[in-house]
């Protein structure tokens, strides 16, 4: 059984197709693993009690000779930001405890239709606000590499679930790095697709113009297989692109053959290095860039002068949109209701509910966003931030006029210890310095593991960014780097993660 959980999604899918393993066996193996290790990791907020039934139906259909999708029967962990009909959806918040959605998020619907088996909902920072999963109302998730450290955030649960072999695939959402930064600190792969490439319908909105749903996996190919399932147009999301997308899995397979690096123009973002970047993170990154060069890539340094304003613009746009998106949590139609002493008007009930139901980071950002939008401040803050957004897009345009992809470390440091940055919001916000520009500009980005930092032995990731709509390029280059490094090491990085749960 333990062999099953070590398989990649692609490997497991092959065995399912060959009927060497049944979907029920695959699902049971992962449920057993969750049972064994999740008390340590706490990646899941809810484990499905209908997953085995769903797996059984897949097996029946396969037995009946039905043509199933390539990932049919493969278990999938779902970030709790995505609404599901068969499991509660809380977005990591007390205010939504027990909330049952009458509809599935489009990505979940597509995953079910492709035969994937949702096995549980993963932990996250409350309403995806955070970089450490310490802001979950349900307690933090621990990094499988070191249980005393954070798994990144907001999607720490999805990354940890995949890193701890509790699921081969997971869904995440990335507003400023919530897929890529957890991937970086857990030695896994995370992709933020082009804005609009994957439907946001059913993703509990944090910042609508920044949010994007994407895959969280252990390999680049697995991520490509998952994006092929969840991507594509959705008429329920106005911002969903109508493009016909190439297969990301095919791009990953092509990349793994290696020759895609020859002549590839790679831009190293000057502003995403140096001060604030941990030495071991920088070392591994520099080594990887050297490796690319050795494989025939043309590496140039590229300046993106407005990236230094990205975090500031982001922490105006995100709270502003979030303050509005989170207004719906008012205790009228769903969610918690707190009655103040002696009753109170509906206004007082709403205020008491939101005081009790939201955690400190959520309140901080709602107040900040309310400020940024309020009369007399809009132009100075929200308006200015939107202009910075234009400038950052122009930086990307100029850069991509010179190079095919941009690279940077995915985050400035490896996984930090619990509590280290909790009291200093600005320090926490700087975790996303490398990932935020892609969200502001809508471009796709991937984080791929590139080794362990020498000083602490913790995972480091490289971020690759491509122009809007060129997601396939991420998979080609990402898979090439992954294949080169694994060939060099003679193993996958994740295989070096410590054993968990006494195994």
């Amino acid at each position, binding site marked *: 059984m333990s062999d099953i959980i070590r398989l990649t999604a692609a490997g497991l899918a092959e065995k399912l197709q060959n009927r060497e393993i049944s979907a029920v066996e695959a699902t049971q193996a992962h449920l057993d693993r969750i049972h064994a290790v999740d008390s340590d990791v706490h990646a899941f907020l809810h484990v499905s009690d209908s997953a085995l039934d769903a797996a059984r139906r897949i097996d029946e259909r396969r037995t009946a000779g039905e043509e199933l999708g390539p990932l049919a029967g493969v278990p999938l962990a779902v970030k709790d930001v*995505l*609404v599901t009909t068969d499991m509660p*959806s809380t*977005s990591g918040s007390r205010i*939504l405890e027990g*909330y049952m*959605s*009458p*509809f599935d*998020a489009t990505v979940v619907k597509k995953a079910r239709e492709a035969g994937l088996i949702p096995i549980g909902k993963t932990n996250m920072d409350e309403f995806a606000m955070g970089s450490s999963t310490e802001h979950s109302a349900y307690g933090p998730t621990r990094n499988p590499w070191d249980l005393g450290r954070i798994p990144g955030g907001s999607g720490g649960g999805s990354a940890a679930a995949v890193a701890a072999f509790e699921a081969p695939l997971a869904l995440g959402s990335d507003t400023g790095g919530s897929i890529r930064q957890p991937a970086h600190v857990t030695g896994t792969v995370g992709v933020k697709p082009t804005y609009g490439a994957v439907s*946001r*319908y*059913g*993703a*509990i*909105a944090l*910042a*609508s*113009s920044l949010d994007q749903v994407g895959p969280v996996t252990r390999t680049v190919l697995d991520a490509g297989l998952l994006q092929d399932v969840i991507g594509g147009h959705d*008429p*329920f*999301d*106005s*911002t969903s692109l109508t493009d016909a997308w190439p297969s990301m899995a095919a791009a990953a397979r092509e990349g793994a053959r290696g020759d895609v690096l020859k002549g590839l123009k790679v831009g190293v973002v000057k502003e995403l290095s140096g001060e604030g970047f941990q030495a071991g993170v920088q070392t591994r990154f520099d080594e990887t860039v050297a490796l690319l060069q050795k494989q025939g890539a043309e590496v140039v340094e590229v300046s993106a002068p407005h990236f230094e304003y990205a975090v500031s613009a982001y922490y105006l746009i995100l709270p*502003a*949109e979030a*303050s*509005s998106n989170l*207004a*719906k949590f*008012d205790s*009228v*139609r*769903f969610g918690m209701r707190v009655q103040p002493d002696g009753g109170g008007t*509906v*206004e007082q009930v*709403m205020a008491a509910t939101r005081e009790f139901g939201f955690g400190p980071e959520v309140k901080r950002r709602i107040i900040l966003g*309310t400020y940024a*939008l*309020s*009369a007399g401040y*809009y132009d100075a803050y*929200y308006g200015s931030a939107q202009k910075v957004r234009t400038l950052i897009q122009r930086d990307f345009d100029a850069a991509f006029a010179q190079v095919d992809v941009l690279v940077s470390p995915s985050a400035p440091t490896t996984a930090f210890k619990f509590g280290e940055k909790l009291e200093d919001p600005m320090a926490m916000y700087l975790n996303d310095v490398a990932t935020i520009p892609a969200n502001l500009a809508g471009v796709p980005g991937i984080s791929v593991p590139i080794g362990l930092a020498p000083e602490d032995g913790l995972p480091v990731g490289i971020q690759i960014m491509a122009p809007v709509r060129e997601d396939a390029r991420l998979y080609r280059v990402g898979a090439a780097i992954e294949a080169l490094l694994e060939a060099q090491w003679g193993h996958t990085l994740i295989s070096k993660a410590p054993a968990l749960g006494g195994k």
Partner: protein
Amino acid sequence: MAKDALMDYDKALELFEPVLGFEVHVELNTKTKMFSHAPNDFGSDANTNVTPVCLGLPGALPVVNEQAVRYSISLGLALGCSIAPSSRFARKNYFYPDLAKNYQISQYDEPIAFGGSVDVELPNGRQVTVPIERAHMEEDAGKLTHVGGSTGRIQGAEYSLVDYNRAGVPLVEIVTDIIYGAESDAPELAKAYVATIRDIVVSLGISDARMERGNLRCDANISLRPRTPEGQPSAPLGTRTETKNVNSLRSVERAIRYEIQRQAAILADGGTITQETRHWHEDTGRTSAGRPKSDADDYRYFPEPDLLPVQPSAELIEELRAALPEPPAERRRRLKAEWGFTDLEFQDVVNGGLLVEITETVAAGATPAAARKWWTGEISRIANVNGVEASSLVSPENVAAVAALVEAGSLNDKLARQVLEGVIAGEGTPQEVVDARGLAVVSDDGALIAAIDEALASQPDVLAKIRDGKVQAAGAVIGAVMKAMRGQADAARVRELVLERAAG
């Protein structure tokens, strides 16, 4: 509610110039809501015409209804507006339980239509051009029912219930520029303006435009500015109030008149006007203070990130322009000629706000004369007595049906009035009322002759007079017969038969 002091209207006009502005909300009659595929039908059972979008459920996203955009462009064009090459939606943030997301998706700095005007004709024949600042798209809110306390009002209610069937119904809000120069016609102008907007949306076919159902809602802004002696600069604009909940043409007129008299009394007394919303009370004919407008009204508008700009092509705009119905002023001239009404008759119709009703009644088969007679006569009378809009009482189809029964001789005028009363009382269609109340004219000569013979026998002196050639004496017999028949007879036929029987 303390009674406001009111100044005599003419006196108020001597001292002050009324300055007006209107915001009219038009509910579009699309099949589905503005941002959701839920049926645009809020007469159904509570919370049955809702989707996750209408309830603002976590994860739901809005998608714009194309038909609503087309209707909005058509309305903009009919108002003489320019259509913005690019307009966009914004979020207007405020908490209220009828607002599912606690923000309303509206248009703010980039409305779909702007800079138009509407020609309005007043009862005294004066023509006024009302400037239109903008028309923008937005969504309606849900409906609150207040429970406990008195008469379902918000004051004193113990709790409230929310139905989101109306949440997300598409609206176009038409905002006028400041209207100067209405002078003593201000109340009539207000009414005529709203009636004209109603005529426009009805002729476009984009709204049911029933004010009593809230399809068309008017918020009226009024301020007064003191008159200055000739040759001196005019005084600055006064503080305005916004009167809401004005749900009939008649109320629009009354509310404006009331506010002018109220504000004038305060100002003349050295007081100041509070900038506030005021609620119109149909029953008392007064306005009462609502929420004061203050700095706390911070809606934190920002571009709606879930929606994209609306950029209609020049082709689409021209297509919709070509399909516009004739402007109301032209239409009025044409209808007057078609219907053959005198100036006075037509003015009656216009003043009664009954153009639409009569058009529809004629379309349903009545003659213009009959349609006018019933709408400006009996129906308006009942409407006045009850203080409601004539159009809310009975459908044009039913009026046409009554006219047809009269035309066919099945009803006389008196009976027809009773039938209308029955229809208005909700007793069914005209035919159903006729059947249920047994109101048909007695056309059986046998029954009439029996009654006539009895009447002649009991009034031998009258019989003698008729036989002497004093035909007018027949009136007494006819009256007795009509009474015996409880009015359900055709008086002309009775007269014929009386003369016949008297002649022996």
